[in-house]
Each structure stands twice: as C-alpha cells, then as structure tokens.
C-alpha cells in the first residue's frame, strides 16, 4: 500500500508537468482544415490565405464512401467550404478566417498546401517561415503550385473523390497511378526553402471541370516560380530524380512506331573540375517494357538496337534539358548542396561554375516483358 501511495504521489507530481503534452478538445469543436492556399492579396504586399474545411454534408459523403457533389460556396450540397483571409502576414489572414469560424481552425490534418505561382520571393519566404514555425501544421501535407486563381482551384470538386483535398492523398499515395511521382511533402519544401543554392520544384495543379491535372512541374528560382515544365520535360526531370514510373517513348522501325513504356530510371551524378571548370557526368540506367512491335515479328532479334535507340534518345533529350536548366542557373537536382556543404563560402563560385558547366549523359537501357509469350 505504501508503494502504491508513493506511486500515486509521483503521478500527481508528474501530472502537471505533463499537462502540456495533451490538449483535450472535442472533435466537433475543431474545424479540420484540409487544404491551405496561399495567393497574392488585393494589395501588392498582401497575402491571401485560403482554408478548405469539410462541411457536415462532406463528412457524410466521406462516411458514405462517395462524392456528395459540388463544392465551395455556390452549391447547395457543398462538401467543403473555402474561407479566405488577407493580410500582410499569414497570422493576420489567419485571424480573419478564425473570426469567420465558430470552431477552432485545426491544421493537424492538413492534406495540401497550394502555392500560387504569382507569389513573390518575399511572400514565399514569409509563408515558409510561418509554416516552419507553426507547430500544429501537419508536415506530411502535400505541397502544390497553381497558376490558376486559388478560388477556382479550391472550388473544384473531382468526381472520383468524395472531397477535393482527399484527391491529392489518393493520387500521390499510389505510385503506380502516375507517370511521374510528383508528390512533395511540406516538410521537404520547408527544408529546400532553408537550404542555400538549392531550388525548389513543385507539382503544378491544374483544375479541370471535374478533376485535376497533375503532370507538370513548376521550377522555382530563389523561391520565385520561374519555369513551368511541359509534361515531356517533367518526365525528363522525373528520370533524373528517379521519380518517373511510367515513362514512354516511341522508336520508329521501318515506319512502325515501336512503343517502349513503363520506363523508369536509376540516375547517378558525378562532378569533376578539370582545369577549374565544372564537368557533370550523368549515368542513367533505364528500364522499360517493349509493348508495341509488329505482331508477326520475333522481337528478340531487335532488342539490342531498340535498347540502344532508347538510350540515345533519352540521353540527347536529357542533355538538352540539363543544359537549359544549367543556363538558367536552376538547380533542382541538389548538386550545389553537396558542393556547398564542403565549401560553405563558395556560393558565388558554384553559381558561376554551374551556369557554365559541361554536361555528359550516359544512358543504358534494359528492356523486359517483351510480350513473346502472348
């Protein structure tokens, strides 16, 4: 009994110290913010903050397992509501939204953070800083960029998902569902924002009528949206980052388009400094499946030249892509990070060397699943 008493005393003594570890709040008192949007405000220095929150109808549709139909402000059966606040800082905009809501705005279940490509570098820095220091934010949320107005983006309701913010999680959590895996977590974006000589890339979210298109990337330079890649260039970026899962090329053979699909790549970079110039060599090993070949021909004889053709084609395209990125001084491949880790005060030198770097791309291809058995 004495021991039990001592244990109880210990618990009572420790309890108040641990009280900060738990904050008990009813779920119904929390407004689950599923998506955050950051866009330019009405005034030049202002930010617009958007929050997408599920409605009771939306929750019911999630429970029922299907789309309830409609979203945003106009629909009578809206699954989410989008609240907007503006201000010079995120905190001010946040306070405006809080005033509109009778529930506690809870960011612990955030699914997506959408950045408008219109945001300036300074605004991105403010947002990055706020997100980093807000402890409540779910850092595993996906980061996306949008060229379209955020009002439009956040009011788009995909037909295949019960609620728009769940669409991103469904899409990004399935690696086999995308040509290029473009998922970026917010913690990774924050890390990039803080790192020197490293540029950011984000997937571009393009709203359609009842869906989203997610096959392009936006390249940032010094936290400012710089280039929007085409789907083809996004695929090339994906090969370099090891994120392309279902690449595709056609290799002509006597006028017949031979299809190579399901292409993925393992890529390795190495840098040399001959005569003080930066030389970057890229080694790519591409794997793919040969699917489209004349049905009355044995494909086995043709595999070697097909592999060589694919390697040549990819290597050439990658070389042009890398040289263009290099000329623009956009380093989304983190090459500068390794250099500056060893030479922390040589940022200017790296920047100059990278812009004038010489590139060599070596590619080898292995084709499998030739379809001979069918």
């Amino acid at each position, binding site marked *: 009994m004495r021991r039990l008493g001592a244990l109880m005393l210990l618990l009572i003594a420790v309890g108040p110290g641990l009280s900060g570890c738990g904050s008990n709040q009813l*779920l119904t008192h929390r407004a*689950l913010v599923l998506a955050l949007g950051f866009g330019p405000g009405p005034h030049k220095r202002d930010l617009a903050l958007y929050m997408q929150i599920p409605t009771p109808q939306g929750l019911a549709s999630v429970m029922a397992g299907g789309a309830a139909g409609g979203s945003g402000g106009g629909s009578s059966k809206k699954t989410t509501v989008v609240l907007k606040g503006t201000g010079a800082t995120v905190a001010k905009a946040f306070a405006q939204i809080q005033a509109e809501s009778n529930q506690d705005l809870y960011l612990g*279940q955030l699914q997506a953070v959408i950045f408008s490509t219109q945001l300036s570098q300074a605004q991105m820095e403010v947002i990055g800083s706020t997100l980093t220091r807000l402890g409540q934010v779910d850092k595993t949320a996906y980061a996306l960029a949008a060229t379209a107005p955020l009002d439009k983006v956040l009011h788009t309701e995909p037909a295949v998902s019960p609620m728009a913010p*769940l669409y991103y999680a469904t899409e990004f959590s399935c690696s086999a569902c995308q040509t290029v895996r473009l998922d970026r977590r917010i913690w990774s974006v924050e890390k990039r924002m803080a790192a020197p000589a490293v540029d950011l890339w984000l997937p571009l979210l393009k709203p359609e009528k009842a869906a989203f298109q997610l096959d392009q990337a936006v390249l940032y330079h010094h936290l400012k949206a710089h280039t929007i890649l085409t789907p083809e260039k996004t695929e090339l970026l994906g090969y370099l980052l090891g994120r392309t899962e279902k690449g595709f090329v056609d290799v002509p053979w006597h006028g017949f388009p031979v299809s190579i699909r399901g292409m993925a790549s393992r890529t390795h970079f190495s840098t040399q400094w001959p005569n003080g110039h930066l030389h970057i060599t890229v080694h790519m090993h591409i794997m793919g499946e040969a699917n489209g070949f004349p049905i009355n021909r044995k494909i086995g004889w043709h595999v070697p030249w097909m592999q060589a053709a694919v390697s040549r084609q990819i290597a050439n395209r990658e070389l042009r892509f890398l040289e263009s990125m290099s000329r623009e001084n956009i380093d989304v491949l983190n090459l500068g990070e390794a250099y500056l880790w060893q030479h922390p005060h040589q940022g200017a030198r790296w920047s100059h060397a990278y812009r004038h770097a010489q590139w060599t791309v070596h590619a080898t291809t292995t084709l499998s699943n030739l379809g001979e058995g069918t």
Partner: protein
Amino acid sequence: MAKTFRIKKHETFSRASHTMKTLNRVRKQMVQGIQTHQLSDLTRSLSRLDKNVSVAMHEAQDPGSADWFDGDIEMASTRLSHMVDQSPDVIIRTFEVGKHWHWPAMLVYVDGLASNEMIDQDTVQRLMDAASKEKPTPEAVLKACKMLLVTVGHVTSTQSWDSLTTKALTGNLVIFLQDVPNVLIIDTVKFPARGIPSTTLEPSVKGPQEAFNEVGLTHMDQLRRWIRSPSLHFDPHTVGVISKSPVAIAYIKGVVNEELLARVTDRVERIQRDLVTCANDVGEYLSGHRQSIFPQYRLTERVDWVARQLGQGKIAILVENDPFAILLPVTLMDFYQTSQDYALSWWDGTLVRLIRLSGLIVGLYLMPLYIALTSVNTVLTPTPLLLTIDASRQGIPFPPVVEVVIMYLIIEILREASNRLPKQLAVTLGTVGAVVVGTAIVKAGIVDDVMIVSATLTALGLFTSPAFEMSTPWRWLFWAMIVGAYFLGVLGMVLVTVAIVAYLASLEPFGVPYLTPFGPVRLGAWADAWVRLPTPVLRRRPIALRPKVRQGAQNNPTPDQFRLGPQGGSR
C-alpha cells in the same frame, strides 16, 4: 482441559440462569393467567436444566472426562443431545449388543450423510444378533464388536470427544459401548453428490471434457485416474475452525520443488477462518500479494489441466465442496493457456493463443485509443478515418469519454444480467442487448457508430482470457487507460502501460516472476508461451518453477521415414 471444563460449567450455569429467567417470567404471567404452551416450555426447560446439571456434576467429579469419553453412555447421550440441541439430522439411538449379553450401546450418526443400509443391516443388526458364550466384559464386548464390524468397512476407535464428534458429523457411524472408553467409528460415509460433470466454464473443442465435482474424495480419484503413479501425493489438511473443511494439497513428489511445497503447506496450515465455503476462501489466504489486482492463483475445474500442471511442477489445492481446484504458483502466461491448446495441433494452439493476445490488446487499447486519437492526438489519426469519425459524431451531445462510460455500463449491465438469468433467457437478453439496444442508442444519437464497434470489440477482447479471473484486472485497468488517454492521449496510454508492466514485473507469487518467461527472459520457455511448439519439443519443465527434475521423459528418436509400398509392404 481445565479451561474446557470451565467453559462447559459456564455454559451450564448460563443455561440454568436462562431457565430461572423463564421461570420468573412464567410466574409473573401465571398471575395474569397461565397458558398451556407456557407450561410446556417450562417443563422442557426444567428437563434440559436437569440434564445439564447432571452432565456438569459428572464432569466436575472427573475433569478429564470433558475431553475423553469415560464409558458412561447415558452421560454421553446427554452431552451429545446438549451439543446438537434439537438438530433433527443427528440421530442418537440406544440399543443392546448381543442376543444374550444385552450390553447397552448407543449409536450416533448424521441422517443423510451416512448410509442407512450399512447402519441398519450391516452394523446394528449384526451387533444385536451377536451371540457369544464368553462372559460379557467390556474388553470382550469391544473385541467382539470389532470382529463383527470388520467386514462392514473401515473401523477405528477413539476416546476423544473432539475426534468422535467430528467423525460423526462427517457421515461416520459412532458406537458407544457402556463401560468401554473406546468409541467405535465405522466409515459409513455416503451422501448424495453430483456425478462427474462436463466442464462448462472452460470448454474445449476436443480432448477431455471432465470437470471436478464438489466431493473431495472424488477430486483425488479423478486425478489418480490421470496420474497413476505413487508419486502423486495428497496431503490432507483441515481448514475452518467451525466448518472443518477438508483440503488436500496435491503434487507429484520428485517433481515439485520441496521449498515451494513447504511454503504452500505452511500457508494452508496458518489459515485461521471460521468457515470455508469455496476454494477462493483458501486461495486468498495463500497469496503473498493480497492487495494485488492480478490473480495469484488459477482456479480450474478441469481435471486434465490440473494433472498437466502437476506434471510441470505445480501444486494443486483441492477444497471440499468446491469443484474448482487452486493451481499455483502462476504466471501471467498461465492465464492464457488452456487444455485445448494441447488437445489440437500445435498450429491451432499457437493461433488461438495469438488471438487471445490480440483480444487483450484490442480490449485494453481500442477505446482509449479512440479517445486519444479523437480528442488529444488528432494529428495521428489518418484523415479519412478522422473524417469518418467526425461524420459519425455529428450531433452527438457527449464527448467520447462519456460515450465510453455509457457503452461500458450497458455492456456490463447486460453481462451481469445474462449471468443471473437462465441460459435460454440469457441468450435472448444478449441478442436484445446487442441488436436492439445497440441500434436504438445510435438512432437516438447518444452514441456514435464507431463507438459501438469499438465498445463491442473491447467487450469481446477483454474476455478472451480463458481464465475468467484474469479478465477482471484488465477490466479495471481499462479505466486507468481511459483516464490516461483522456488527459494525455497516447502518452498517457504509454505511461499507464509502463506502470502496468512495471507492476507485473514486481509480482513474484511464491517466488516465481509473474512475467516469466518474458521478464526475466527465459528463451527456452518461449516454446510454450504465446506460441506452442509441437509436444515432443516441449521436453523441459518451466525453469521458473524450479522443479526438482527439469527434464521430462526422454523422447524417442525422430521416427524413420516410412512409406507403404505398392504390394502392401514397406519400402
């Protein structure tokens, strides 16, 4: 002896005082008008007073006769009548031994506990018809009686009043012979008892189905059928100052740890209690941690399980009038093992044990986790799940913790009501409770759907322990977990878990660590813990029990591969 005599004298005088009071009362009432039944009371009281005074005077002449029978059957009759008062079940009859001797004798037995046929036909009739040419002396009569009764059953003799009254009250026939200080005790015990029942509380799909009944002697017989070895010992003890309940300590000599046996025997002998009505009355005296929420011994009705555990080096305590044997020492793991685990293949045994473990985890953690994930650590919940929970909680007026209390109370009330009702009604009640109340409470918006699911799984999970007594601590600790989850979320649950594990690790009933074989780690014993390996592999007894011989019987070598040939011969 002198003290006993003083007590008897005091009793006699108090009875005399009571009679005097009755007389005074009657005298007063006589003035108002005497009544017939009061006169009858008076007569009976006077008669009893007379007898009591006679006994007291007789004992006063020879103080030693208070404890020993002196051969005076009239005084013995009076004394016995005084002791049992008007109990109709105690039969006291006088008769004469020998056709020619007409030697006065008296018999005492308890009607219902002794066999009437044995008493009337095999004993009294024989004694009355005895014919002898010898001169009737006390020695000759005693000798003749013993000779005549030797075929009836076990015959012993005693002079002690304590002994003979105990024997008489447990179904033996006690025969007093005039002027013979030795009282004959004949084993005529025969009373109605339940047959060998099938086990109901610890059922098994296959294997033995036999359970103990309430008779101590049958307990031993049943065990003896399982272990036909002289090594199986039963040490008899009597517990209960008034009830004098027989208790047997069963063990296998040569296997059980002698120190453990001595400690258990010592604790049984130290029990000071008026009445013992069930095995648990004994068990609660044996535990070294009486305040512990976790059971320190296992109660089982299965004979095969007791036999198996004895073979491991454990000790069983068999208590008269209770079909449950006490098994000790025990570990936490013991409460999650059943005989069915061994009656079926080892794959089945392992599977059901793992399911029991899962049931424990689900039962203990599911509802606290629900509270933690919906109220405190919302960030840890997967979004689709949280949205589903949020949707189901729309319009619910209570916080999750109140829902838990409501659901738990409903389940416990249903369970308790089912226990008290006849089996057929209990099934109906369970169905009504589960379906009707469950549906209605959700429709009424008192509890949400997800809570119904978790409450049901919790209720089922907490009862997956094959030993009912182990479900109780978890049902208590469940609330500690709820409190921890409510205030500190998952951290609170972790803290409560650590406290539980620390407490379990501190328990050592009869020197055996409660958490063994996991704390301290006994890798060898893991073969028969949450998994059960094939029986031939389980050769060694648990080291935690410190058995005298650790190694069981040697295995046969692995049999050769054998295949029947096409002509019927082997190849």
